[in-house]
């Protein structure tokens, strides 16, 4: 029996009430994150990646959102059953989060020092002076030059990349066991992106924190994640160790995503593949596979019967009627 996972999401369903409709943003999602592991979650826009992370954090806005089913087991306890106070003691201390847009994720009215020290004063019981010293150390760790001189600046005095570094140092300041990064680099320049990702992997190596890295860019997770989860329409479509997923995708959707990653070896100007069509309306339940209208491999059964999540190996799953075939004969 392997070590119990740090995080185990079981059959999670998070829906949003929208006028007369119900948007099933996440619908029956299960996955695990082990200690020290980096898990990448990829999928097109609207596939439910952010809603998944907010559900784990207990931050789904309610209303309109509600978690209708499932468990989020973190270190043995179901977070969905925890009271507000108990959940607050976990947020920011044991599970921390970095959001997509560093320009708006920090409070523009408060000094960086205030925003950094309030976390450790709250969770670690730091004194004012300790918290400040700790915050300066954290800022130095993430490579903010002259951290001591800049800690009393306001967010708008930092560039986007620097703000994301501040966010990361703030998230890591209580040494959380799990760091959820929701598109931490999407809003940044390409060169800054690489620096931030490098920083995350380095910090992860230093602290042993588990990381959930959310992105719609397979290129980003390729170099960082141990395992990748592919989401589509609020469901898990494939999960596999990173190398295997790239070498032998066992799901038509994953294949489509892989084909649309820019290949540096490809001739410049060559047209990039794009999965035809658009993701489905999540308020409408389909009889068959949610991907069927866009899938090149689709057959009659795909439109009538929802595909099961097929376990291919101990480490791999794929949601497709033809999962085993695809896995065996790529």
């Amino acid at each position: 029996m392997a070590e119990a996972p740090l995080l185990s999401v079981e059959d999670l369903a998070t829906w949003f009430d929208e006028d007369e409709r119900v948007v099933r943003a996440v619908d029956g999602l299960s996955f695990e994150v082990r200690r020290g592991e980096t898990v990448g979650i990829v999928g097109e826009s609207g596939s439910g990646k952010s809603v998944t992370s907010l559900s784990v954090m207990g931050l789904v806005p309610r209303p309109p959102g509600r978690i209708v089913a499932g468990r989020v087991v973190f270190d043995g306890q179901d977070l969905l059953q925890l009271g507000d106070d108990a959940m607050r003691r976990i947020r920011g201390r044991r599970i921390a989060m970095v959001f997509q847009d560093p320009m708006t994720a920090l409070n523009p009215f408060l000094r960086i020092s205030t925003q950094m020290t309030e976390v450790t004063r709250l969770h670690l019981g730091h004194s004012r002076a300790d918290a400040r010293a700790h915050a300066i150390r954290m800022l130095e760790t993430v490579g903010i030059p002259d951290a001591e001189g800049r800690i009393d600046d306001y967010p708008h005095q930092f560039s986007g990349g620097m703000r994301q570094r501040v966010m990361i140092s703030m998230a890591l300041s209580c040494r959380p066991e799990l760091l959820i990064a929701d598109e931490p680099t999407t809003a940044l320049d390409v060169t800054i992106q690489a620096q931030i990702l490098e920083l995350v992997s380095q910090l992860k190596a230093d602290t042993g924190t588990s990381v959930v890295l959310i992105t719609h860019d397979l290129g980003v997770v390729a170099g960082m994640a141990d395992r990748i989860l592919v989401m589509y329409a609020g469901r898990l479509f494939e999960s596999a160790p990173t190398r295997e997923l790239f070498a032998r995708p066992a799901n038509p959707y994953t294949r489509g995503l892989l084909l649309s990653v820019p290949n540096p070896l490809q001739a410049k100007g060559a047209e990039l593949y794009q999965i035809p069509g658009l993701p489905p309306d999540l308020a409408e339940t389909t009889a068959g596979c949610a991907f069927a209208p866009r899938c090149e491999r689709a057959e009659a059964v795909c439109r009538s019967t929802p595909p099961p999540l097929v376990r291919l190996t101990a480490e791999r799953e794929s949601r497709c009627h033809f999962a085993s075939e695809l896995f065996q004969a790529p």
Partner: protein
Amino acid sequence: MLRFILRRLFVTVPMVLVVVSLTWGLIRLAPGNFYTGEKPIPPAIEQNLRQRYGLDRPWYVQYGRMLGSVAAGDFGISLHYIGQPVNGILASALPVSALLGALSYLLALVVGVAAGVLAALRQNSRLDYASMTAAMVGISLPNFVLGPVLVLVFALSWYWLPPARWNGFGINLILPVVTLSAVYMAYVARLARSGMLEVLRSNYIRTARAKGLPERTVLLRHAVRGGLLPVVSFSGPALAFLITGAVVVERIFALPGLGNYFINANLNRDEPLIIGIVAFTSIAVLVFNLLVDVAYAFVDPRVRY
């Protein structure tokens, strides 16, 4: 910042000049004169009066004298309150108006902010609907209706409060303050509500919650500043409106404030007093707006002048 303040103080000068000039022109356009009453007066006396107050001089001499009085800050002698210096009237009326205005705005801030913030926290609750309906009524009800209604109910029917009479600062201020404050209370409540709603949905509040901060800290440390910024910016225009409102309210409740004197001065064509009140209030409005802008920069660190 200092340069900004100096520059703003500097532009105050031409603005006040324009305001008093317009006022002066309008007085001249209005029919009648300070000595014209119901009974016609003999031409000889009229001649005397015109000479005595310099009305026989060419208009530019009179205009120049008026500007001189504004520049010197000494507005001369009232034409109606015979022998009384305008500055003395201003000094006696100002505390009344200032107190009325300050109490009204304070009440509007306290009640408006509380109602607006609570409504935002309990969006779409009964409390939200109730306070927003009250705000709607507050905005649509003119003070010259609200004032008499309040008097009728609280003073003339229930005998709880004195209707109208000035006997120093006290309980007799309650009805005027409530009357004057109602509209601003309503505006502040609506501004506070929409400001808070917007901020509570913002990314940085989500970050604050993700840090595990208690809801109280999220609200008081993280949300209130940005959420109440619209209320701060409203304080500038609010003062200008308060002044107009005070004219009506002081009249209704017979308070000896600037507004009441202003109406009398206009009815009496009491030029020095009109110019004095206009010059004084326009300077007050401009300076107060400057203070609001300075306060804004303190609340929002992104604002730099």
